């Protein structure tokens, strides 16, 4: 089976700082990959390479459905089916809800004329069916800055969902969310799986990642320290190994494997 996404020997250097080096990483079709790693391990940089926000250093290669991708831009990444729910949500606070849902992908005709009616009615539909907004004060015209953390997350997730991405990347999606909002978020990841799509789920909290992921990849100091199928080890074993990585930079204790 062809990988949905494959990175070969990818690196990223900012000035003299090497954020990522020799990263080999793949996502299979209909797979949820949990990406774990400490602060500064390079998780966010990896996401921004996959979404075309940063360009990888020369030598690294990226494949999408088996085809080589060069010079990926954010727009192109979204066009081929990669959507991201960013840690900082990537919303425009002073703009209306409908403008945020269609941020960067406005519905318009070939002359660039906006289909405002269409965008508003789609937003109205999404609010009822997907976002689960409990506050009755919110309309498609509401500005996003008045929203709660969970509502903002709902907007970001709905946006990723609406464009029917093949691959949804969630960058620390549970940060700052309440317990029930977190549950919604995890349900969403399960929904992606059920719909036959793939996701990369990045989080600090392994208690969130472990239950929903099929495979777990551990990033450490800018490179992939190791990976395992979830079935291979229990949550406790995973925790032990993460401690090990943090201390030694190696997933496996000496003599192990």
């Amino acid at each position, binding site marked *: 089976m062809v990988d949905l996404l494959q990175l070969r020997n990818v690196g990223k250097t900012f000035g003299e700082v090497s954020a990522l080096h020799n990263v080999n990483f793949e996502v299979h079709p209909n797979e949820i990959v949990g990406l774990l790693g400490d602060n500064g391990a390079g998780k966010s940089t990896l996401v921004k390479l996959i*979404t075309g*926000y940063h360009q990888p250093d020369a030598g690294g290669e990226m494949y999408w459905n088996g085809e080589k991708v060069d010079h990926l*831009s*954010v*727009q192109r*990444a*979204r066009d081929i089916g990669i959507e*991201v729910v*960013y840690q*900082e*949500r*990537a*919303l*425009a*606070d*002073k*703009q209306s809800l409908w*403008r945020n849902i269609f*941020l*960067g*992908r*406005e519905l*318009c005709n070939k002359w*660039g*004329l*906006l289909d*405002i009616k269409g965008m508003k009615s789609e937003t*109205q539909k999404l609010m*009822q*069916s*997907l*976002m*689960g*907004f*409990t506050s*009755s*004060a*919110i*309309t498609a*015209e509401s500005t996003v*800055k008045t929203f709660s953390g969970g509502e903002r997350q*709902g907007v970001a*997730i*709905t946006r990723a*969902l609406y464009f*029917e991405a093949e691959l949804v990347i969630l960058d620390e999606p549970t940060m700052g969310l309440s317990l029930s909002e977190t549950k*919604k*978020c995890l*349900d*969403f990841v*399960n*929904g*992606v799986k*059920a*719909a036959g*799509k793939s996701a990369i789920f990045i989080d600090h909290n392994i208690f969130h990642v472990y239950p929903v992921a099929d495979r777990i990849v551990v990033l450490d100091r800018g490179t992939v320290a190791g990976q395992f199928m979830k079935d291979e080890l229990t949550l406790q074993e995973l925790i032990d190994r993460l401690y090990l990585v943090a201390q030694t930079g190696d997933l496996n204790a000496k003599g192990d494997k």
Partner: protein
Amino acid sequence: MSSIEETARPLSQTAQKSPLAKFARKYSLQIGIFSVAVVIWLLFLAGSPRTFLAPNIYAAFMSSTPYFALMAIPLTLVVITGEIDLSFPSVMAFGMTAFDVVLTTTGSVWLGFIACLLAGVLAGYLNGILVVKVGMPSLVATIGTQFFWRGAVMVITNGQGLGMAPTQKSILYPLLVGRIGGFVPMQFIWTIVVAIIVWFFLNRHKFGAHVFLTGDNMESAKLMGVNVGQTKILTFMVVGLAAAFAGFVVSLDVQFFWPTLGDGYLLNTLASVFLGGTSVFGGTGTIFGTFVACFIIGAINAGIVAAGMTGFWTSLIYGLIIVVSVSIQTVLGKRLG
């Protein structure tokens, strides 16, 4: 795909509010500025009824307000993206210098007019490149180009003006600055046309959507694939084009091009944008607000003179308007944010 929450919820309460309340909420900024305009007009009417009941003063408004309104309206776009352009007064003169050179060499008013507009676009493009590609703060970049273009104008013209008599035979003269029925100046019509075009692109076109997003949160816009740099460069080019056009209209109307053209337009143009409710922090603003504010500024100028104060007061009052309107924005922004 499964949803985050299956239960559909009833639509909002605002949807059930009266349409009037909805309208008032949505257009509060526009209603506010319009009310200010009406109040000021009534004040002037009460203060000097003889001046403000005569039609002459309105003919004067319609002829001189477009000089800066033609620039304030597109400048609104630049301010919404969170940038500023201070170079447009010099670009007015730079465009006319291009006209001057082309007219003297070819003798064609039309070629001169096109050269004038192209020079404006070029000057705007340079501002855009300095801000987006070089990464200079727009405040500094456009102060630099303001002096640069003024200097270029002085060097090229050697400080000499140009009589515009040859333009009177051209169709451009009645088309741009003629008087409809001997009363309504054409530049007023063009100001309305420009306002409608800019309003359309800001509110009904992808370009305008990107203008708002760029000014609101540049990082979010970039993350979601908006070409932030291109959007900014385009807004600067539009202002450059508008400044050259305004310079042409002014010179045509007064039938002379002075190399100092543009002096005295900086304050009233900026004051119009900020008084019109466009946020100095970017992300919000309306064309209607700027349009009405231009006429408030124009009226204040006339009002000062009508009230018997000297012209020295205008600068003081424009400065005050900028400081007060931006203060109000800032305070309101903090409270609401």
